[in-house]
């Protein structure tokens, strides 16, 4: 199952990868109409008519302890921007819980994001 599907305004689609290789940077640079995003518990998030979108995976790797060396995929983040508001979906990949925050452009979290990831 693909992690997400991008529907472009030119009526073409892009199918995303998975948590290990989401292929976000492979999305073609053209206007997006909507995104359908699959969460760990099987629920789909659908986002439509935003200005731009961002997605990344957060990994914790213990340097010691019982799970040392394991890449623990802890969260995925799906962000959608409209005007000056960024709607941030923080999805726990361990529990499936989804936290939603609305941040402004001045927020440190938004400002620090790698600009290559906006689509």
């Amino acid at each position, binding site marked *: 199952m693909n992690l997400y599907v991008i529907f472009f305004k030119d009526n073409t689609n892009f199918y995303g990868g998975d948590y290990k290789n989401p292929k976000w940077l492979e999305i073609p640079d053209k206007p997006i109409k909507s995104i359908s995003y699959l969460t760990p518990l099987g629920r789909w998030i659908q986002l439509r008519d935003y200005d731009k979108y961002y997605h*990344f995976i957060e990994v914790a790797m*213990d*340097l010691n302890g019982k799970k040392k060396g394991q890449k623990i995929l802890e969260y995925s983040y799906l962000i959608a921007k409209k005007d000056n508001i960024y709607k941030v979906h923080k999805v726990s990949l361990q529990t499936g819980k989804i936290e939603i925050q609305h941040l402004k452009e001045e927020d440190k979290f938004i400002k620090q994001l*790698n600009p290559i990831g906006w689509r």
Partner: protein
Amino acid sequence: MATVMNFRVNYVDADHDYNNYNSDYITVDLNNDYLIWSDSLADLLTHEPTAEDLNAAATVIDDVLPITVAKCLLMDYSHDVGGSYYTHLVKGMGENKRYVFGFCFDGATATIPRLEAWDDDTHTTTAKHVLGNGTPANSFVKAVKTTSSLPGAGWAGIAIAGSTYLELDDAVLTIAKDLYANVKIIIPADYATPAAETFVLTARYTYL
């Protein structure tokens, strides 16, 4: 492909970076190797240290002055570096040295990679004494970013525990890059709770 991180320790010369002196580093096999913080455990042991070895070399709490744990050693399970040795002293730990612990990324990240410390692999609590007994500012574990410069003589670093963490660079990674940090453990003077505590050091990073 997703960005991958390798954790490396310098066991030769902490003035040498990985890019130019990669043979100065051991790439830590995180499934089998581990770090040992000790007062006097020997470098270049020809066996895996036993509990007796570790206890005999433990740091003794000072009743007057804070004490810095003197050594960090890599327990190299494969014991195949420079001979058949299980322990290698991590060079420059706690000193004014830049290239000690290396976090080597092979691609871009969405956010700035960071180093964290937790009670265990659930990454939820910091109740252990070594992590400040619930008060992150009191954590014994001090860390400093050395990616772009020396930490300075007598560096204080950040007391890391839980959500108080060390960012390993000044900005997100746009390309592959090696990041560095120095880490030390300082036990407060006359600390009332001697213990052999384990804690988890965690590298947290992101990929697109």
